[in-house]
């Protein structure tokens, strides 16, 4: 098999942080005066970015090691990544997590490792991740709603964390659970999904080098709307598989329940691999709207790739499996 060389962006390509974060401010300021007369009154748009202070750049996150698994495609603005989220624990509107997760305390935080492992235990989230080198993984994130982003996550391979717990031979799947706390997560008062949010992967999917536990993005600590303090990122599957706010990781023998599959089995399967050939009852999955620099109101639609463009790396996991039946 020919050796595939993954492109590695040189540090000189990285946009200076100040410019990147200030772009929208500059544009807004320049046009605000001109359009103030037209609109008359100053109306708050429905989807304004979060006004909470961004987490300060932490040197540990800022110096995360680059990875050959990163893409070189244009990234999604930090403002957009942190203000346009599906995190129903904080409300079902795209802007709700940014609004309602402002005061959410992501520390202290315990993650339980349980099930078919030789070394189960409860770990402080920072202690859990500390032994491993933080990597920056610039991944495509494809929502089942047919929009996508390109996000520079900071995290560690899930495989490394699980290896320390020493899974037994009976570990066939990995089950994840989110925090369940109606006071801290007011969106859980609505029954759109059963709480707590649960997700699962097959053991080989969990051990795949692409699968990471993310604790940061854009060189800083993971913001609350994105699943602070720790979340899963499985870039070749629809975004709802990348469970946020994880409190428990259990190695199990049988395929675990997953929240969206439980709530609407006709729409959401267990594997949820991004696949333009698998018909979805609600949205066509053949194409998607990319939310990133360079795509705006015009021309943001692009073709959806099998496995979200990670086919070369993950298709072998599913060799011989009917991808339509096991979607």
């Amino acid at each position, binding site marked *: 098999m020919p050796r595939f060389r993954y492109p590695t962006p040189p540090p000189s390509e990285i946009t200076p942080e100040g410019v990147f974060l200030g772009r929208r401010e500059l544009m*807004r300021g320049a046009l605000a005066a001109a359009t103030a007369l037209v609109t008359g009154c100053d109306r708050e748009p429905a989807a304004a970015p979060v006004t909470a202070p961004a987490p300060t750049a932490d040197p540990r996150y800022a110096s995360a090691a680059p990875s050959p698994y990163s893409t070189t495609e244009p990234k999604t603005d930090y403002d957009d990544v942190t203000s346009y989220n599906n995190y*129903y624990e904080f409300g079902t509107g795209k802007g709700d997590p940014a609004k309602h997760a402002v005061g959410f305390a992501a520390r202290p935080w315990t993650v339980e490792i349980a099930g078919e492992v030789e070394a189960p235990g409860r770990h402080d989230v920072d202690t859990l991740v500390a032994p491993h080198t933080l990597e920056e993984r610039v991944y495509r994130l494809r929502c089942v709603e047919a929009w996508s982003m390109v996000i520079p996550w900071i995290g560690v391979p899930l495989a490394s964390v699980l290896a320390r717990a020493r899974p037994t031979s009976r570990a066939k799947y990995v089950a994840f659970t989110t925090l369940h706390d109606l006071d801290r997560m007011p969106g859980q008062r609505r029954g759109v999904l059963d709480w707590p949010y649960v997700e699962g992967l097959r053991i080989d999917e969990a051990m795949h080098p692409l699968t990471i536990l993310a604790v940061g993005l854009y060189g800083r600590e993971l913001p609350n709307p994105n699943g602070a303090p720790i979340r899963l990122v499985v870039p070749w599957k629809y975004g709802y598989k990348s469970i946020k706010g994880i409190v428990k990781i259990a190695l199990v023998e049988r395929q675990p329940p997953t929240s969206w599959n439980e709530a609407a089995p006709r729409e959401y399967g267990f594997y949820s691999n991004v696949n333009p050939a698998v018909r979805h009852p609600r949205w066509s999955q053949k194409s998607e709207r990319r939310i990133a620099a360079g795509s705006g109101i015009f021309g943001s*639609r692009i073709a959806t790739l099998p496995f979200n463009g990670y086919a070369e790396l993950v298709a072998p996991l599913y060799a011989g499996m009917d991808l339509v039946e096991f979607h």
Partner: protein
Amino acid sequence: MHALCALPFLLLVADAVRDTLGADPVAEITHRTGIWALRLLLVTLAVTPLRRLTGLAELVRYRRMLGLWAFFYATTHFATYLVLDLGGYWPQIFEDVVDRPFVTVGFLAWLLLVPLAATSTKAMMRRLGRNWSRLHRAVYVIAGLAVLHFVWLVKMGKEIARLEPLVYAGILAILLSARVALAVVARLRRPQAPPRRA
């Protein structure tokens, strides 16, 4: 009144220019044009019951204008979907219209609005005569399809992810029952009681 109806569109354009539509501007434009089409459609349906309740005949003057503005927003909504959203991926339209119920009913609602918009002039009213009223009764069906379009497009978990579409369904139900109630009352009043003897 025209200024009021145009205002949401102008604000939308202003937001688009200032890039304050959020992360997914196309989704936001689609949502706002659709919501104003639905709102104006429901306001149009509210005119006749309001007139019967208040006795203000001049309200009917606004009905045509409101209906046409609803058509404007609905057309902009459809155009946004075709041009801004799907862009070059036009073959996907056929799949969407045929295969996804919420798109089917939305498209039907817009399609039915076209003849209504085309026959909205006074000249057309005269030309069609009684058939004009019959044709324009389609607005009930259109409103129902539009509400269904909104209810069906919102993500469903164990229950609907956002309650907003149900609010509009409720408003439509109230408007339709108001019409039925007023029609019933009018019919009850018709057989005149004999004049009281002096």
